[in-house]
């Protein structure tokens, strides 16, 4: 991965653990681009890197935490969000970003995702969706479109997928966006917005997985696979996330779908803490 320059022409290399490169991602995979967009977004949003933590679960995208020169946590499968919840509640000054994949965040970790959105905890979740379990060899995931072929759906997927922006938004997320990896500038902008936005932000990044999912579904190879996703996408900011379902070879709605204000978990928690302390003070007077 070559680190790109950010808007001010500064390299993102200083946010990478150079001594851990090369990374494990396959050629043609989009996770590195998503990670680079995130690193550029740190500067764009003017986030203090000392106060920024990255938490990942398990899987290809889950390896992101291992490459960033930030406080970074590579946790167990599906559990990045509750780990990040503990970090944030332990120290509200932290800016916490969960960077992981669709299998990790939506299947095994799906319950944590919807509850974190419901709480509106001040966290950004970057979910790289490559429609399958890449690291374990391309098995079907809860995001694989109906009829998609994977190593465990050899006759085509017989389960409908989750629509992730709809799921996040219905669960209470304050900010929801989706882009493909070739929308690198839009991704960077969305990530910067998400990191500075109070409350729960969810960004879905559509990435090709050319080595397993792409091959099984006869998608173009290498850079062409990225173009294939970009060309299928239709930018429609503000669209109802309900409309954002992805069908095999169908159009992919992208854009910023949700950007609303709701009290965050900390807003509500501070209110409760104040009440508890007032009660203690009142009792002390009696």
């Amino acid at each position, binding site marked *: 991965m070559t680190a790109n320059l950010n808007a001010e022409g500064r390299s993102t290399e200083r946010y990478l653990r150079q001594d851990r490169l090369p990374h494990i991602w396959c050629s043609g995979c989009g996770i590195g681009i998503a990670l680079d967009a995130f690193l550029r977004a740190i500067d764009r949003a003017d986030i203090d890197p000392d106060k920024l933590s990255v938490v990942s679960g398990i899987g290809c995208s889950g390896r992101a935490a291992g490459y960033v020169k930030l406080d970074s946590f*590579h946790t*167990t499968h599906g559990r990045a969000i509750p780990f990040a919840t503990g970090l944030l509640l332990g120290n509200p000054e932290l800016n916490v970003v969960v960077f992981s994949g669709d299998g990790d965040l939506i299947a095994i970790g799906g319950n944590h995702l919807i509850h974190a959105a419901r709480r509106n905890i001040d966290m950004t979740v970057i979910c790289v969706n490559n429609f399958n379990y890449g690291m374990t060899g391309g098995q079907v995931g809860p995001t694989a479109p109906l009829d998609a072929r994977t190593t465990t759906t050899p006759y085509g997927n017989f389960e409908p997928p989750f629509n992730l922006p709809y799921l996040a938004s219905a669960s209470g997320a304050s900010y929801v966006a989706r882009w493909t990896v070739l929308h690198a500038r839009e991704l960077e902008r969305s990530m910067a917005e998400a990191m500075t936005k109070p409350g729960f932000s969810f960004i879905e990044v559509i990435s090709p997985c050319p080595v397993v999912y792409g091959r099984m579904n006869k998608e173009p190879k290498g850079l062409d696979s990225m173009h294939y996703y970009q060309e299928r996408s239709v930018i429609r900011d503000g669209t109802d996330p309900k409309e954002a379902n992805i069908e095999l070879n169908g159009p992919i709605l992208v854009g910023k779908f949700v950007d609303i204000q709701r009290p965050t978990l900390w807003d509500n928690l501070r209110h409760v803490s104040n009440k508890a302390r007032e009660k203690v003070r009142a009792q002390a007077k009696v």
Partner: protein
Amino acid sequence: MNGDLACAEAAISAGCRFFAGYPITPASETAERMSIRLPQVGGVYIQMEDEFASMNAVLGASWAGVKAMTATSGPGFSLMMENIGLGVMLETPCVVVNIQRAGPSTGLPTMVGQGDMMQARWGSHGSYEIIALAPSSPQDIFDLTILAFNLSEKYRVPVLVMSDEVVGHMSEKVTMPRVAPEDLIHRPRPHLGPEEYLPYKANADLVPPMAVAGEGYHFHVTGLTHDERGYPVMTAEAQDRLVRRLADKIRFNKHDIIRYKEFQVEDADIVVCAYGISVRIAQLAVRMARDEGIRAGLLQLITVWPFPEERIRELSLQAKAFIVPEINYGQIVLEVERCAGGRAKAILVPHMGGSVHSPQTILEAIREAEL
């Protein structure tokens, strides 16, 4: 005050400022008490969506620099196992309280059991060492919860407080001494700057100093096998170095960790070895046996893991039998048998759960062993 509440008050005294949990009988009272107390002292209580989340939130809070705990019972303890393993691997100080009920599965949710003792030792996958303490009274759970926080901070390991439903729900007088700052142990902290600091380079006691999130160290931690930098290394050599150290930091320091109490063992032919609520009944059985002229004594296990092997070995040279009453079908008795090495018999007095032993059943086992 009952044991569950004493546990919560002890945690506050120990400086715990974060609790994440999920409602479960018979541990919910600890959570409820923490939900009252933590906001009063500037801490955070949160009810998570399940025990996976609870355990991970506890680990996350600890990495934010806060003393953190959870409390649960059998079914929840099972769900926490995966991430107790993560806590071991990342070397994360935290306390997990298990108010044991009778299993397997949903079992007897409101009634006592001691069936999770081996799960406490071996429940997460892989090879590791853990610390587990067993309180026998509400006072004990107060004292041992503070000890649990101290040991977890000192050795950077999750410490399990293996209580049970009867200890959790019984009300007795609890003396809550003012805990002075010098009574509390804090995790070792880095003395080097971010450029030199290696997150898993251990001190002489095999415990590495711990930086926490937000201090500018930009450290990496992972559940993968890792080197001193915290970087994943997928080799047998790295595995050997790491797994040995994780176990040895407990094994080599066991003299500092292990605690037990003895009653009338000096001249005992028969040693009752008990833990948790069973200690209380065993005390009575030993007294009854002494009244009959049997030289019986009691060894109360306070630290169950690491197991007090050496003391059992010593006593096996003097006693002819160990009587082990357990509210399960034989767990700790296997450890006693191993350490007794055939020099003394290890006799299980099992109880499948739902109530405690009667002193009579333990007394009968003592009498039989004496013959």
